[in-house]
């Protein structure tokens, strides 16, 4: 199979999550492609806009329902901007799924700590849904999410829904206050002090800005969570998605094929570094 | 006696004429009082900028004087410098240079004929307007222009500001096999050029006859491009090195361009001049085409310059094919140059007419003084004279119509595609 082959997909639904943030529900045009497609939570697709380019975007939908692929995209630059202007019925291209997702098997029987920042909640969303659908297989679930401003909070209903699950905590933080913000004001790591955790039986999943993840990991480490049970989703320049183009290297790892979800003990020496 | 004014003109200045201009006309009743073709293209001071540069840099710098005919500037420059350094490029380099020049003639003439001049006869504002009405004509024009571009690109790396021309020859010459890849397009272009001659030959030409003094290079062997003496229809014949003794420049108050006079009178350079002084040396296919459209070698109606240009496209295409067929790569791409101090001059035939360069170089090969006389500046005075002849026949017309006719006449001379022609603002003062 040619890993560079792109498949057409139609935008079945476009939801505006916040200003400049959209969730696209995509359906493959080709039935054969659609039925063969399977993915794990935390994997990503290369989404392609004709004449503009391809960017890596996490799959946020439920791996159990691989026919409908949800991608939440923040408009930040050249490709994402044009993508944000696409409408229901338009087609784009998909290549994927690529990378390694969240350690959902390893997490079985453990307490799950999810730490996210900004749009970082999107790539974990699919995994969280997956866990809740198998609620009994996992220990407690604690979701800690930070945003810069209250306005940046996405998936408000999802957070509310998650909160309803047994043995689950959802803690939100915003750097600055706002009229409708009833949650913590401050950075996400401050939430760590508000939750009870049993470090030795926990597994951590993090996604967000690299500095935030590094600080959070160090913090968790101090609380006693073993480094090999912390997982970080990394972002790098990706041109191929399959570990060949060389752009996404982090030390000896390729963020695309060895990640994007990577074990903290492995990448810690390279975090905040340029090689 | 050396006149102080003359001496001042000799200071290194090149007032470029391609660019913007305006025409000021003062009419006093039925009398044409004043005609000023004002060129206000900002002067770029090339002659000053060349001072202190190394002679090897000259081809790259002077190319930037004009993006439409950079090869002409490069050719005049390298010939002037080679004449100083006594470099004799062999036949093979000579014919490659001619081929390069053919490319520029084709490109520049096709652009003028199709994009700039023909619309005047077709009643449209620009050639792109033909996209809907006569797409095949427009496409033929674009493809013909491209036939010139591909020669330039193959020999020089790109069509605008080619990079391979150097004193002594070229930085790289193509192997025979590479040149041959051009033949197919050029054979198409030869047919297209013939069609072009027939097409423009059928245009409706306003009746206007001018009394010209033509100046062009003249060479025994061939229709002039890179070589020849300076000849004039008044009988003058002199080596190019004596050009300045016959053609003098002076500054007109109303223009940043310097005007040229031959022995004190306006004259015309360009296709019409070349044809008049060299028609015997046209290639057979061109002579035949000329006879077919019933054109005489002395074209005194400026509007018919479009036919002459088309004939020169045919000439250049046909010659390009012959050069390629006969081509053998030279032993070395460039002759060895031994630098010496002194002054070198040369003139070549740019698409729009004779282009003269003079350089004074020191023993280290640095330029001490440069003088460049472009064709448009030589034609300036002549264009004003034409206006003076044209205007009395237009006095009863609306200002707008007068403007159109004047612009149209100026365009006949292909001053440079960005020049006065289109940017022209006509100010008519009636007193």
């Amino acid at each position, binding site marked *: 199979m*040619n*890993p*560079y*082959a*792109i*498949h*057409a997909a*139609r935008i079945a639904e476009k939801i505006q999550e916040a200003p400049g943030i959209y969730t696209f529900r995509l359906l493959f*045009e080709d039935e054969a492609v659609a039925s063969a497609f399977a993915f794990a939570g935390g994997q990503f697709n290369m989404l392609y806009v*004709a*004449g*503009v*380019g*391809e960017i890596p975007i996490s799959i946020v939908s439920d791996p159990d329902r691989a026919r409908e692929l949800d991608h939440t995209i923040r408009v*930040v*630059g050249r490709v*994402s901007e044009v993508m944000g202007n696409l409408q229901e019925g*338009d*087609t*784009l*291209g998909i290549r994927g799924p690529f990378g390694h997702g969240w350690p959902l098997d390893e997490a079985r029987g453990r307490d799950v700590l999810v730490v996210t920042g900004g749009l970082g909640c999107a790539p974990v969303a699919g995994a969280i849904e997956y866990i809740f659908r198998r609620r009994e297989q996992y220990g407690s679930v604690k979701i800690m999410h930070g945003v810069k401003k209250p306005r940046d909070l996405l998936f408000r209903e999802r957070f509310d829904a998650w909160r309803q699950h047994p043995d689950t905590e959802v803690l939100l933080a915003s750097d600055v206050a706002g009229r409708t913000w009833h949650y913590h004001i401050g950075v996400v790591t401050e939430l760590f002090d508000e939750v009870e955790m049993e470090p030795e039986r926990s597994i951590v999943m993090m996604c967000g800005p690299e500095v935030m993840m590094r600080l959070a990991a160090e913090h968790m480490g101090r609380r006693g969570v073993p480094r090999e049970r912390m997982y970080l989703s990394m*972002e*790098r*320049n990706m*041109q*191929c998605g*399959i*570990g*060949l*183009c*060389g*752009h996404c*290297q982090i*030390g*000896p*790892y*390729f963020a695309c*094929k060895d990640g994007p979800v990577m074990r903290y003990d492995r990448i810690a*020496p390279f975090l905040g*570094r*340029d*090689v | 006696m050396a006149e102080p004014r003359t001496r001042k003109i000799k200071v290194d200045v090149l007032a470029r004429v391609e660019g913007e201009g305006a025409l000021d006309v003062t009419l006093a009743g039925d009398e044409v009082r004043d005609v000023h073709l004002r060129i206000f293209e900002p002067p770029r001071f090339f002659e000053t900028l060349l001072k202190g540069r190394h002679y090897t840099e000259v081809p790259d710098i002077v190319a930037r004087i004009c993006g439409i005919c950079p090869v002409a500037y490069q050719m005049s420059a390298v010939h002037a410098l080679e004449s100083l350094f006594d470099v004799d490029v062999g036949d093979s380099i000579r014919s490659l240079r001619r081929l390069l020049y053919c490319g520029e003639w084709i490109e520049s003439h096709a652009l003028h004929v199709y994009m700039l001049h023909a619309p005047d006869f077709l009643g449209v504002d620009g050639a792109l307007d033909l996209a809907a009405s006569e797409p095949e004509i427009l496409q033929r024009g674009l493809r013909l222009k491209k036939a010139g571009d591909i020669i330039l690109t193959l020999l020089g790396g790109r069509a605008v500001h080619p990079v391979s021309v150097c004193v002594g020859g070229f930085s*790289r010459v193509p192997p025979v096999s590479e040149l041959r890849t051009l033949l197919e397009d050029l054979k198409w272009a030869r047919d297209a050029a013939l069609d072009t001659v027939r097409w423009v030959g059928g245009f409706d030409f306003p009746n206007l006859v001018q009394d010209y003094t033509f100046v062009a290079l003249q060479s025994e062997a061939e229709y002039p491009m890179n070589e020849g003496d300076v000849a004039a229809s008044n009988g003058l014949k002199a080596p190019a090195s004596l050009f300045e003794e016959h053609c003098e420049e002076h500054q007109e108050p109303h223009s940043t361009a310097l005007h040229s006079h031959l022995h004190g009178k306006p004259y015309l350079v360009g296709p019409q001049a070349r044809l008049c002084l060299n028609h015997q040396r046209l290639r057979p296919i061109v002579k035949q085409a000329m006879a077919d459209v019933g054109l005489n070698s002395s074209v005194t109606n400026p509007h018919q310059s479009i036919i002459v240009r088309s004939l020169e496209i045919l000439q250049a295409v046909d010659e390009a094919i012959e050069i390629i067929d006969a081509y053998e790569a030279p032993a070395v791409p460039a002759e060895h140059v031994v630098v010496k101090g002194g002054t070198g001059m040369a003139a070549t035939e740019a698409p729009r007419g004779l282009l003269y360069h003079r350089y004074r170089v020191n023993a280290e090969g640095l330029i001490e003084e440069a003088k460049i006389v472009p064709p448009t500046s030589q034609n300036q005075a002549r264009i004003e004279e034409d206006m003076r002849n044209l205007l009395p026949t237009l006095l009863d017309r609306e200002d707008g119509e007068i403007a159109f006719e004047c612009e149209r006449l100026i365009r006949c001379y292909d001053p440079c595609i960005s020049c006065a022609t289109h940017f022209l603002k006509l100010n008519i003062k009636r007193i």
Partner: protein
Amino acid sequence: MTDRCAFKLPRDRFDDLLQAIRQRNYLLLAPVERDGSVMWGEIEGSRELAWGKADSQAPGSYRLEAGHPERCFEVTHGPQSLKSLTFSPRQKLVHVRCGDDGLTFDSEAAESKPTAVIGVRACDLAALKMQERIFIEGEYADPYFKARREKLLLVAVNCTRAQPTCFCASMGTGPAAESGFDLVLTELEEGFLVAAGSRTGEEIIASLNLDAAGEPEQEEARQAVEACAASQTRSINTEQLPQAMYAAHDHPHWDDIASRCLSCANCTMVCPTCFCHAVEEVPTLSRDESERIRVWDSCFTPEHGYIHGKNMRPATRERYRMWLTHKLAAWIDQFGSSGCVGCGRCITWCPVGIDLTAEVAALLEKDA
């Protein structure tokens, strides 16, 4: 040098070898003189090889000079390795059509013509093996590399002349070609020694009716290659790698390199193992069609380390560090051996002659 069953190929029968290969429908590529160096060029016979030429390389300098008049492999390696033949500098991937009914994608077919490459060096074979590991032995196989690789017939030449920039001996990759070829030649005073490295190679030799080489020729070849190894002046001390490279991350010497390095990427372009590439989107002006084209890229470009809002390697210091750390350290962790095969191309073709062996030595010294 492993002793294979070697045969004598007289100089005047060299062309027979080439013709035997050609008869098997291979296009012949060999180092031919082009613009002052040697490049892979298509040849019809031995005449077009660089007879009587020798190259002389030094940091930032390459000259083609007169050499032994009867030899054609005195010229060692030009700027090209096998890389350009398998990992094309410009490879179309997908053609996209944008119609009213959406997008259609046509992947470019992966095809190649049988091609015999004459004059492949040991370092090139080592690099090819490395690139095979990257491009076709990993999780995803690159179909274009694979198609090209499968159609190659490799005629290696043992190096009997080292350049001052060569250090393959210290990297354990040369100067003798040990494996990975179809045929291997050694150029001797009187003709060549030829041996096979594959079934095809054996068949070709068999078709030529050559005499088996005697001990004197074998000895001459052995000595020539050994002398070549012994003549190498540069080396990299690989013992402390990769850790020492990682440890040198904050070494002040990176700034010193950055003051000299141009970030021009020549080193990565000529490096036979560097594999970075970018994908360019080339739409038509009308936008009804577009092409996705893969081109060689480098960690020295301004865009290489960029993600939205942040450049991981904003300046030359970080870029050079990326290149050297990747070559000599991360590579070992990624692919099991060093990314440097000691061909010295990056030293010769660096416009300002930056020499990685010297830079590594400086970096591995304890902080000044």
